């Protein structure tokens, strides 16, 4: 459709708005640029307050320190494992549940839907959940990180709504071809659902990547995810760079903290331009009421 476009000159208001928007973009970026600069600067430059957005006295000492720290790669590996396994289990369970729940004619459909919705508004709470996990003897195992979060109700409802929008004729054709429901799900529905699965998969992956609290209350030290390691560096529970002299420990700690921040956030920042369209897709799919 063609709409005739009027070329209006930029008004003062336009200039203000553009300036404001540029400020917003800068505000989103500057913290990361500052962290990057700190992580690459020399301790002398940091202690003399010379570092702002450009690294001064470029060196990779901070990265060297964390990469030679014995447990850093272990924590990083733990996070990768929780993210991969957690996302896989979550997609598996959510898809099975959502596909069955997309069929309104099943008996008990209404009841199960009520169970799902009710649990969104009233959750068990911290202490009962903690006691349950420890009574199931999951504390100190990776399952404590993975199983309780296998199904997120919001993602479940997004997927149910998406699957309900798929025309039933496609399934009827598959039934005539002799497929049963497991086969239909695997061969027909899954390929059609890739956008929706990518969206909720990404939300789930971000959740697992960023999680630290459940690691804190359920896991042993050697099972910690990297975010919990970062938190422990920040509040002084964990120490990196012990070889340094006592005097510049705080500034060394500063560049090391920044290096951990950068390395642990890097995957999200790098993948963000590729993934962001799925995030918004998820929000709009979810707003379509079934």
């Amino acid at each position, binding site marked *: 459709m063609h709409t005739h476009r009027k070329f209006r000159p930029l008004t003062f208001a336009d200039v203000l708005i553009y300036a404001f928007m540029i400020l917003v973009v800068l505000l989103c970026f500057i913290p990361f640029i500052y962290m990057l600069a700190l992580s690459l600067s020399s301790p002398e430059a940091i202690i003399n*307050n010379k570092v702002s957005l450009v690294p001064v006295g470029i060196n990779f000492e901070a990265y060297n320190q964390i990469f030679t720290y014995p447990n850093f790669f272990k924590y990083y590996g733990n996070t990768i494992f929780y993210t991969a396994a957690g996302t896989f289990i979550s997609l598996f369970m959510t898809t099975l549940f959502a596909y069955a729940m997309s069929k309104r004619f099943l008996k008990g459909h209404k009841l199960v839907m009520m*169970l799902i919705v009710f649990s969104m508004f009233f959750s068990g709470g911290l202490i009962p959940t903690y006691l349950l996990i420890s009574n199931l003897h999951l504390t100190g195992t990776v399952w404590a990180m993975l199983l309780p979060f296998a199904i997120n109700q919001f993602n479940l409802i997004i997927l149910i709504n998406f699957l309900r929008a798929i025309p039933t004729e496609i399934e009827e054709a598959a039934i005539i071809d002799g497929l049963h429901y497991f086969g239909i799900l695997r061969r027909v529905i899954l390929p059609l659902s890739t956008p929706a699965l990518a969206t909720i998969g990404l939300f789930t992956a971000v959740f697992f990547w960023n999680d630290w609290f459940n690691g804190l209350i359920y896991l042993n030290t050697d099972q910690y995810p990297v975010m919990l390691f970062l938190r422990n560096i920040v509040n002084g529970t964990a120490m990196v760079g012990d070889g340094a002299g006592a005097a510049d420990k705080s500034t060394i700690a500063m560049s090391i903290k920044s290096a951990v*921040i950068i390395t642990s956030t890097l995957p999200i*920042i790098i993948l963000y331009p590729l993934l962001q369209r799925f995030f918004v897709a998820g929000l709009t799919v979810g707003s379509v009421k079934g």
Partner: protein
Amino acid sequence: MTETTIASKPSLQDYTPRPGRRHFRRYWQLYVMMVLPLIHFLLFKYAPLIGNVLAFRRYRPGMGPYGTEWVGLAYFERFMQDPAFWRAFGNTLILSFGNILINFPIPIIFALLLNEVRAQRFKKFVQTISYMPRFISTVVVIAILGELLSPSSGMLNRLLGALFGMEPIYFVNEPQYFRPIYILSETWQYTGWTAIIYLAAIAGVNRELFEAADIDGASRFQKVIYVTIPSIMSTIMVMLILNVGSLLSLGFEKVLLLYTPSNAMVSDIIDTLVYRTGLANQNYSYATAIGLFSGIVGVILVSTTNWLSRKMSGESIY
């Protein structure tokens, strides 16, 4: 359908598949699919719900998660008389209201301004960048804040020192800065994300309204005030009511990360109180009682505001 032709008495229209064995023979695989997820739901979503009986029972270590004997409302009476609870309750309300006051209007203003950007590419770019902070871990946000606000070499203190000659302030440790830090970090993290909803609402406004306003000679500002805002009012109302409904649920993880003994008088909220009394001091029943109380208040708030929302704007979340 072929079976129905044998029995001629009930017409084809009256025929509904007899519930029972044929239904299950046909659809059993769909029921099988639900088994694992349902077990998960009962175990991880509903067993903890039942676990709340612990608020009325005494917990003894090693005697199961549901406690040993009934004590009635003893734990509720105890926390009602506990000044620490009322401090946490007050802190929760103040922080929540402060957060709504600042962070409810900001995404609306941002969306309205962004909508005025006529260069579509630039608009898209700003929007994409603006919701990136939503995907950054709270730990990272707090760690970055710690460095930006550091008294020895943080950027903000250096800036204040250079511009106004101010002495460095230990922001993350001083109680009076806790609430601004919490609220402004929420602004940074969630403004762009929340604005998506308003931008979608603005995109749905009937274009003829703007054209009519143009003919009437309305200025750009007048169009925002008299066309755009009234058109997205129902969205604004629903969002406001939802915000009020979740008054007691703050960003628990963020508060926990910002918590230090020296800012405890303002940063101890209900959730951190539950965490400390329950998990750190292992007063399980007492902490469960506090958690249950806040959960019930939360459900009452959500359902009341949802009911109000449905009455006022016809929109509801369930």
